[in-house]
């Protein structure tokens, strides 16, 4: 019987995620969407000081020293655009025609749950997105289900239901307009937007 221990799990997951980013090549490319590097001095996620961790979260979490989230002052001074450009909220990626949140997705959502606990006034819209291969009409339902899957998991780990909205954009707003497997993988996502703080 495994009881979900919120904080330690998410810490492990955070670490794993950092490491995965550092290891860069093994995993699918992280989301396109970060044109602006973290401002210097910000405790952004990509600090190149962490030891590599296993690529997948394991069943038995091993407690590690907590990864400090950015101090309150670092984020509270930013406007919504700045927050979303360098968001602490991770997207969740999905398989073809699927709305199932996999282990990597759950790890990302655990990070997001922690951030939402920290920033207790943020209102989040979870956008459901699809790749271009399905039809425009059905993809609205698929995007809806992806956003809902992400939301349901977040709520199940203690996320604030009253601050989590969803919206489906189907295949209307691809993150990568290319017609490649790599682009499609980026476009099948639940994307988190901070809509109020």
């Amino acid at each position, binding site marked *: 019987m495994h009881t979900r221990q919120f904080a330690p799990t998410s810490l492990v997951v955070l670490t794993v995620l950092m490491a995965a980013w550092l290891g860069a090549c093994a995993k699918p490319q992280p989301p396109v969407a970060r044109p602006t590097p973290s401002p210097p001095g910000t405790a952004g996620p990509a600090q190149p000081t962490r030891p590599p961790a296993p690529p997948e979260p394991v069943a038995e979490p091993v407690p590690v020293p907590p990864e400090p989230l950015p101090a309150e002052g670092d984020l509270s001074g930013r406007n919504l655009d700045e927050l979303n450009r360098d968001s602490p909220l991770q997207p969740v990626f999905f398989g073809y025609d699927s709305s199932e949140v996999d282990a990597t997705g759950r790890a990302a959502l655990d990070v997001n749950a922690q951030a939402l606990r920290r920033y207790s006034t943020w209102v989040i819209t979870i956008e459901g997105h699809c790749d271009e291969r399905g039809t*425009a009409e*059905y993809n609205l*339902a698929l995007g809806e289900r992806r956003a809902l899957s992400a939301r349901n998991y977040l709520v199940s780990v203690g996320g604030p239901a009253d601050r989590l909205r969803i919206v489906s*954009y189907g295949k*209307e*707003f691809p993150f990568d307009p290319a017609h490649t497997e790599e682009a499609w993988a980026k476009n099948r996502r639940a994307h988190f937007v901070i809509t109020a703080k």
Partner: protein
Amino acid sequence: MRTSLPCFAAAAVLAGTVSVLAGSAARQTPPPGQPPPPQPQQPREVFVPIVGDIGAPPRLAVTEFVALPNDAGGSGVADKETQAIAQTMTEVLWEDLRFEREFYLIPRDVVRTVPAPRAIDDVRFDRWREIGADGVLIGTVRKTANGLLVQVRMAAVRSKESAFGKEYSGTAANPRLYAHTAADEIHMQQRRLRGVARTKLTFASDRDGERIPGPIEARTIKEIYLADYDGANQRRVTVTRGLNNFPVWSSDGRAIAYTSWRQGYPNIFLSFIYTTAPPATPAGGSVRAHNWLAVWSPDGTRLVFTSNRDGNPELYVVNADGSNLRRMTNHSAADTTPTWSPTGTQIAFVSDRSGSPQVYVMDADGTGLRRITFESYADRPTWSPAPFNEIAYSSRTGPGHDIKVYEVATQRVKQLTFGEGTNESPSFAPNGRHLAFTTTRWGRVQVAVMGRDGNDVRQITKIGNNYAPNWSH
């Protein structure tokens, strides 16, 4: 929105002053500026059909419209503008007649071997007979003080009788409309066919290239457009600088319902395109009740649409004024993308309750559910108007999709497109003989139309990407 007013006004004027030509028509024309003489309720008209050889369509010689000078004596020469209008009308009428495939149109270079008519009653029957014409079509156009005076006449070559004669007057704002009207009336009179020459298409387009600036990635907007059925007169309807898609015509052609994300979530908007009235939101809509993919009932009084208001996508019906909301489906899977049967007694829709999106049909009261497609992926069912009883849909046939048609009576499926790009979002013409759809066969996503047998594919849009066409009634 303002630009569409002249067109609508022209249609009204045109409808008001159509007169039937009998014999030598021009002399019956009232002088400009005077009201037309009262028309008898039922003009005495002997039906003279243009018939071809047995088993063959009638062979029609479509001559070039004659541009008449606007001076009363007729001694001068028509000005360049009138000549251009005559040329436009010739081309439009030709394409309108070709579109329905009811007549064999004698090739233009053969028609030109006969000296061109110079007036509406200038019919050289012997020469038309020589080139094998069963009928000959002659038109004239003249500028008047108020706009245009257009005459169209069709004569049966063998019997030398007048088979069709009409005179139209109205504004010069949209000369194409005169040719469209004549084509529809010829089809109705000669073939008992409801033509589609005056119908319109609505669709979504990103042609303006506007983007919503955002911190993550710029997002290309889509606005609602409309166009004549042949792609002419394309106009933007919405100016939201946001995402709008899936427009559908109301039965009277005066309103378009569509899905817009302008409030931050999808909701159904109803735009009255010929007035300045603000759009209505008949499905309500809120942050927790999203509505999308509306379709009108055949009688134009209700909308069926998808909503997540009860937790997952289900179908709902609401009156156009927002009253009498009713839930139609109840399943943990997504139920979406509805279409009404022509009689309004059944609704076809898409559900993924089997694990993949498939088309189902239910009675309009929610009972009698049955699955009709067994594809790997089927979406956007659209029920044909009578007399056909077919449901077109897009089916995943490979990396992309193709348009297929399910014949309700026989349960047979026929495929209309075959892997040229991806082909989606079919919509029937109001006479059921054509479909509009989107295709990527020319590169970007474009609206095209084709016959119900899949032939005669015509490209309607060329600028930007264009989506989700819907044919007016």
